[in-house]
């Protein structure tokens, strides 16, 4: 009889778990594959037959249409990459700077700053004052900074990071470091951060996703069509069509020759998601148990 490695599940349970995950994977990936499939299908077939996983009539028409605008797509990609890259790095630092004091149990103003942050999570002045702030006071209309600045500190991420820190960093570690004369900022970046890698990786991933997926800031602040993020560029077609459906009297007047078809909309979704699928494995390795660098010793 083969010896099972210490502390694994029984083969029966293991198989069951695999079945569960295979079903989950299929349920999650197949819809996306359908989107890809439709983007490679001939437009008229889609209208007649509906969505199918494997294109009945293969066609590159949708991508050829997108390729006409390849310069703009490239430019928007670049903008999204810059915004996401810069935004994630700065945001991670800001989040850590706020989460660390909240995690330090002997910080007397803990609750105050937690409430201070939490209120911004719940209350919102609305679009108008926000817009006025960014355009009239900060003069950031049409600036890339306007795409980065609004998301630099997300209360949800701060609270999650704080909870992670509370759970994985023992107080004794911090105390001993302080007794050795270390400054708080040294403790945070030299001692805490390496131990809280999964936390940083998670928040880093979420922030990347948030910046990459954002289209709203482009909608608000960019008025020339060149400097929009790739998501806005792709999504606005879909939203234009939604608008037309809900406002048929306007739709009737509109110059329709430039209105993309169903397959083009699918191709746009594919193009918009693309790079994230590549970026995700970079973060992923930090979630897998056992890879945590420098586990707590003694």
């Amino acid at each position, binding site marked *: 009889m083969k010896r099972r490695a210490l502390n694994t599940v029984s083969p029966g349970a293991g198989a069951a778990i695999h079945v569960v995950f295979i079903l989950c994977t299929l349920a999650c990936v197949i819809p996306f594959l359908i989107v890809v499939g439709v983007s490679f299908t001939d437009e008229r077939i889609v209208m007649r037959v509906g969505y199918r996983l494997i294109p009945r009539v293969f066609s590159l028409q949708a991508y050829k*249409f997108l390729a006409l605008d390849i310069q703009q797509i490239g430019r928007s990609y670049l903008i999204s990459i810059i915004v996401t890259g810069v935004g994630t790095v700065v945001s991670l630092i800001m989040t850590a700077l706020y989460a660390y004091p909240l995690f330090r149990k002997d910080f007397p103003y803990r609750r105050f700053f937690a409430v201070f942050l939490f209120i911004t999570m719940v209350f919102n002045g609305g679009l*108008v004052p926000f817009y006025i702030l960014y355009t009239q006071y900060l003069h950031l209309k049409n600036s890339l900074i306007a795409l980065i600045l609004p998301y630099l500190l997300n209360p949800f991420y701060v609270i999650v990071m704080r909870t992670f820190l509370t759970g994985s960093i023992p107080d004794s570690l911090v105390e001993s470091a302080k007794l050795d004369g270390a400054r708080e900022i040294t403790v945070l970046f030299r001692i805490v951060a390496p131990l809280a890698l999964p936390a940083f990786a998670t928040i880093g991933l979420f922030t990347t996703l948030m910046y990459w997926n954002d289209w709203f800031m482009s909608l608000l602040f960019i008025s020339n069509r060149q400097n929009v993020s790739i998501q806005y560029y792709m999504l606005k077609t879909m939203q234009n069509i939604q608008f037309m459906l*809900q406002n*048929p009297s306007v739709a009737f007047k509109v110059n329709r*020759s430039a209105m993309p078809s169903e397959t083009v909309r699918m191709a746009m979704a594919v193009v918009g998601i693309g790079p994230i699928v590549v970026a995700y494995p970079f973060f992923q390795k930090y979630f897998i148990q056992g890879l945590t660098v420098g586990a707590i010793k003694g």
Partner: protein
Amino acid sequence: MKRTRRFLICAAVVVLCIVVPALSLTAQTLAPVTLKIIACGPPQKDVQLVDDALSAYLKPKINATIVLDQYDWDAWNDKVNLILASGEDADLVFTAPWCSYTTNAPKGAFLDLTSLIKKYGQGILNSSYKWTLDAGHMGDKLYAIPSNQILAQSRGFRLRKDLLDKYGPSVNFKMKDIITPDELEPLFKVIKQKEPDVIPYFGIPSKLLSWLGPWDRQGQFEVTTMNIYDQVPKYINFYDTDYYRKSMDIARKWFLEGLTNQDIATSQADPIDMMKSGKIFSFSQESNHLTQEVESRQTGYTLVLQNVIKPIISTNLVQGTMWAIPRQAKNPERSMMLLNLMHTDKTVQNLLVYGVEGPHYVKKGGNVISFAKGNDPSNPLYYNQVWEWGNQAMNYDLDTDAPNGAKRLADFNNSAVRNSSLGFVYDASNMKNELSELANVAAEFDPQISSGTIDARADGTYQKFLDKLKAGGIDKLLADQNAQLNAWLAANKKK
């Protein structure tokens, strides 16, 4: 004595030489200003070229540099409201009821143009119908100026000509000037029989049969309306009319017999796309004199238009394209001058619509143009909305369209039925709560009932709908609307 008189005469001459020229406004005496136009629609790639051309053309006339800012449909309503609320740079703004005009105007977003138009908008006054300008009023203030474009609207069925020719004769179908939907039934039945893969009638929730009458209805969930054929105008409960009930019954019949698409109450598909794919025989929508040619071209099938109503014209339709001067305009006089030129100057109009001659279009003689080689209409460098600017009648004719667009436009507008409510604008400030609730009631019941997907009479849903409308305050709304309408009619008769 003689010396003094001579001196006075010289002085007078000198003074006159200075004052008289100054009194006539020439561009040289106007300070330079940059005018920002905020328009709706997809931003054009070559907009900078057009800005430069417009500025070059208009500098000698009104000493203005022009910047055109366009915002795409999805974001238009939000953006224009933000621009108005934040007071950022804007000198001329497109507006219409579907982008918050009726709410923003009474709240001071736009300037009152009554005196401005008299001083600098003579061209507009001369080229507009009286009722056009009436539609831009709220009370006695002129907040926006409607543009001249296809103002009238008819409604009807588009039928695929090839199938019509094939099967029409077998049911003795005759094209008429005006038809009622049930007259199409035999035709639909034979199509269903002989062409099982083709849906005879494709309906969508916002354009159901009930809407195909002579109603002043633009938004999908407006609960009150006016019958434009009625020469004595009156607001009525749209859902409590014989026309609505008859449409409901016809729709139910068609649904049960499989003459329509199964998802008629929820469909998110575009009828033009459906027609393109060859899956449907007919659909119905608003129409005008260009519909047949335009939609035949868009769908790739020759279509024949069978109207259900004669063209109508109402305030709502006239308000569909308006320009206003926002409160933050830095030089309202100059904005009005620009607007005046937009209504009267053919060069300005065509620069805005078709772009610059050469890179964007080439002249073909007379009033006809065609797209330039590098300017493909399906992915254009510049090809803007033809209806959005001052005066569509001034447009060049595209070589792909029928000629003499201006005359056909005028004929169509003039052929429309109208009643004396034309020019009346309702102020909804006091009925906001009722409108909020009634919109939701209509959204809940109308599509399922008038699409025929349920037997609304038998299962009591229709009665429930009417009861809920009553409980939501429709009578109060009607009372307010009719009161304002009658007051306006009375005041207007005196004019």
